[in-house]
């Protein structure tokens, strides 16, 4: 990673740490959710962006993580921070197990299978035989934790910092994983399955493991989300959550780590903005935002930023060359004078 990137990340971290001290508690809560979603989106991106396996059901893993946390805190008095590893492990196992039969399915078929998972989750959570644990339709209420060691922070602020710490940890973990052999293997499997196998990559193991790890990330996010919102109920984890996650990684930028953060900002704040623009048909406005973003940035926010950086770098280089060559692009990005674009 080059110097410029390190400086930018340091600045971003500084801003993130300063934030809760500058805004209202409600905004802190909203930004905590942004961090939560970022973790969930990174999980989904691992599977769909880097490894090419489409999931329309990650809301289910989020729900499992959330309910793990809620049940442990409510029924067993487990402290909030201890629920995270449990949620992670449970989702890792469930995700891996789901990934095994999913090995046989590709593209659309995998999308449908995961879609089924996402659709079934609310029904499962409402199932009356499980009501004892899940609290049925009413769900479970949990209490927001107080800051430890008597720190002079509000519960919202403490939870924000806690979530931030977890997020940084998990992002660094993912970054480390992706830039080495594992990352290359995942991308190889995504782009050319047959070739990867022929080169000795154990595609089946990688794909199932990726499912598991991806579910683990989203599950941990779910647990954090439950703690932040202090409430879990079946209908908050319906198929729209899964669809929202997918939208998030596409808008943010597939196969990118910062994309998870851009996407999280989008899915947390754009619906609010849409609501303010039109009370009558807020989802129509949201849909327009979706389409608009994809038109303007088909590779997501991250893709657009990278293209911008590349174009600026090229301009620096071009400025050093002599002018007058055909097909060079002027500032507006159009070919000069007498060129013909074909096709």
């Amino acid at each position, binding site marked *: 990673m080059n110097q410029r990137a390190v400086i930018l990340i340091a600045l971003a971290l500084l801003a993130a740490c300063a934030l809760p001290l500058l805004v209202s508690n409600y905004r802190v809560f909203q930004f905590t959710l942004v961090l939560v979603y970022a973790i969930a989106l990174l999980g989904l991106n691992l599977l769909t962006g880097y490894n090419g396996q489409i999931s329309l059901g990650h809301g289910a893993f989020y729900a499992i993580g959330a309910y793990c946390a809620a049940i442990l805190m409510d029924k067993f008095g487990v402290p909030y921070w201890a629920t995270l590893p449990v949620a992670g492990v449970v989702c890792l196992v469930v995700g891996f197990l789901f990934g095994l039969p999913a090995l046989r399915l590709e593209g659309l078929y995998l999308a449908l299978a995961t879609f089924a998972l996402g659709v079934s989750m609310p029904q499962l959570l409402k199932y009356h035989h499980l009501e004892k644990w899940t609290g049925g339709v009413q769900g479970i209420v949990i209490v927001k934790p107080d800051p430890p060691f008597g720190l002079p922070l509000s519960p919202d602020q403490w939870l924000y910092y806690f979530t931030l710490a977890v997020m940084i940890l998990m992002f660094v973990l993912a970054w480390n994983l992706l830039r080495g052999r594992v990352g290359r293997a995942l991308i190889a499997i995504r782009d050319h399955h047959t070739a990867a196998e022929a080169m000795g990559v154990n595609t089946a193991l990688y794909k199932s493991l990726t499912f598991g790890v991806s579910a683990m990330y989203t599950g941990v996010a779910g647990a954090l989300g439950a703690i932040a919102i202090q409430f879990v109920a079946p209908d908050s984890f319906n198929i729209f959550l899964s669809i929202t996650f997918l939208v998030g990684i596409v808008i943010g930028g597939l196969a990118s780590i910062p994309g998870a953060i851009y996407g999280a900002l989008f899915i947390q704040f754009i619906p609010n903005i849409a609501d303010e623009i039109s009370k009558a048909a807020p989802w129509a406005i949201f849909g327009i935002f979706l389409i608009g973003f994809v038109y303007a940035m088909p590779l997501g926010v991250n893709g657009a930023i990278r293209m911008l950086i590349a174009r600026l770098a090229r301009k620096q280089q071009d400025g050093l060359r002599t002018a007058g060559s055909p097909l060079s692009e002027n500032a507006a990005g159009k070919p000069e004078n007498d060129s*013909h*674009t*074909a096709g």
Partner: protein
Amino acid sequence: MAALLQVARLHAAYGPTRVLHGIDFALEEGSITALLGANGAGKTTTLRALCAMVKTEGEIRFGGARIEGKSTEDIVRLGIAHVPDGRGTFVNLSTEENLRLGAYVRRDKREVERDFERIYGYFPRLKERRHQQAGTLSGGEQQMLAVSRALMLRPRLLLLDEPSFGLAPLVVREIFSIMRTINQSEKVSILLVEQNAAMALDLADHAYVIETGRVVLSGTSDEIKQDEAVRRSYLGY
């Protein structure tokens, strides 16, 4: 006599990467012309440029009229058939469906049916496999199918991109001899891109050698075959 195809100062680029830096060449009607050169020289890009599959600059004249700026679909209608590298077979359709698509822009139904018979005459193996899914044909058969599909257009100019690629020499010889027949009996002009210079020079009348996006040599195939220095430095044999 004006050449069937005239290319002047042709530049082409893939996005920001320029591949052709001003190519000039011409092709006489009824002739077979070869474009030779090493990997990455720009031969395939030249064919793609003729069919408006890449961004270009410069002049392309077909039958005297300028065609740069037209869409691929319109260029096909002018009578240029392109057999791309990789063959471009519709792998999930049958052999016969592939051939029928070759004649998509034609209105003369009876002649199309006659062309089917003619093609099956050149390539009886395709007739045997007419209902088979095209993706399951062997490499050689797929190449025959690709060429046949182009011929179903009854083109004035046939563009062939690396027809020998991945095929056994015997199969290539078979296909090339049929190319010669078609060129002579049906007056189809052929522009042939090949890495296998030896076989290409046996088939072609004229040849151009391209290196990193520029024409570095041109002449009749006899001239080039006989010039040892040229053969060694540009064609590797």
